[in-house]
C-alpha cells in the first residue's frame, strides 16, 4: 500500500489550478442504497422504496446525497490520508439514481505552508456518466 497521493507531490505540482487525479466509483445499485440506509441510519424511504419515491413525484428511488458526499470523503482520504482532512463542504445539485456511475474529481484552489505542513484548499466534485456535477464542494486538507 502506498501513502496518500498528494504527499508525494512537490509544491509546484500542487499549484493553484493543478488538476488532481480522479477516483471512479462503481455504478450505484439499489442494494448499495439499502446498505447505506442501514449503515448511516437514514431510513428515508425515497432512497429504498420506489412506491414512496413515486408518491412524491420522483421516477423511482434516488441515492442519498450523503452517499455522494461519502464518495468525496473517500476521495480526500485517498488524496491526503484520513488524518489530514480539516473540512469538507458540499452542495447537492443533482439527483443520483441507481445505475449512475460517479467519478470524483478535484483541483487545487489554494496552497499555503507553515510549520505544521502544507495546507491545501481543494475544489472537489462528483460527476455522473453524463459529466454533470451532481455534488460540488470545497475541502481543506493538511499534508506534510
Amino acid at each position, binding site marked *: *500500500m502506498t501513502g496518500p497521493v498528494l504527499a508525494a507531490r512537490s509544491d509546484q505540482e500542487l499549484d493553484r489550478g493543478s488538476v488532481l487525479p480522479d477516483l471512479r*466509483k*462503481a455504478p450505484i445499485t439499489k442494494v*448499495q442504497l439499502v*446498505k*447505506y440506509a*442501514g*449503515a*448511516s*441510519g*437514514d431510513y*428515508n*424511504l*425515497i432512497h429504498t422504496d420506489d412506491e*414512496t419515491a413515486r*408518491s*412524491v413525484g420522483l421516477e423511482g428511488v434516488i441515492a*442519498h*446525497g*450523503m*452517499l455522494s*458526499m*461519502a*464518495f468525496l*470523503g*473517500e476521495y*480526500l*482520504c*485517498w488524496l491526503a490520508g*484520513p*488524518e489530514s*482532512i*480539516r*473540512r*469538507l*463542504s*458540499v*452542495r*447537492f445539485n443533482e439527483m443520483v439514481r441507481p445505475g449512475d456511475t460517479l467519478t470524483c474529481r478535484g483541483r487545487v484552489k489554494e496552497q499555503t505552508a507553515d510549520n505544521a505542513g502544507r495546507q491545501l484548499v481543494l475544489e472537489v466534485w462528483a460527476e455522473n456518466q453524463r459529466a454533470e456535477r451532481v455534488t460540488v464542494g470545497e475541502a481543506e486538507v493538511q499534508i506534510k
Partner: protein
Amino acid sequence: MDQPATLSPDLIGAESEVVLFEVERGAIRKFAEAVQDQTPECLRGEVAPPTFPTTFRMTIPGLTYDLARVLHGAQEYRYERPLRAGDRVHCRVRVADVYQRKGRLGEMTFLILVMEGRDEAGTSVFSGTTTAILR
C-alpha cells in the same frame, strides 16, 4: 391535498439533548463497506470515514416534518481530527436558522442545523452544518 411545508422561526435555537455516541469498529466497517470506501484504515474499522458523523442521529423537540418532502441541499463538516474506533463523542444538534426563499420549485423553507461533537474532556472533535430544504 399537499400542504406547503412550513416551519416556524420560533424553532431557531431549539436543540437536542447531549447524546453520547460510541464509535464502534463494526459500525465503521459497515459504513465503509456500504460506501465501497477503499481506505485501508476505514475498511479495518480503525478510522471512521469523514462523513461518519451522519450516523449520529438525534431529535430536536418540536421539530417535525414529512421526511419524503425534504431535500438535502448542502452539508459541511469541519474536523479537529478523525473519529477513531473506541471514541466516545458527546453530540448535540440545534436549529441555527429557519427561513423561506423562492427556489427552482417555488417557495421553500430552509432549515439550517448545526451539530457539534466533543470528546470526554469537552474538546471539540468535529462540527457539522446541514442545509435541509422542505418543499
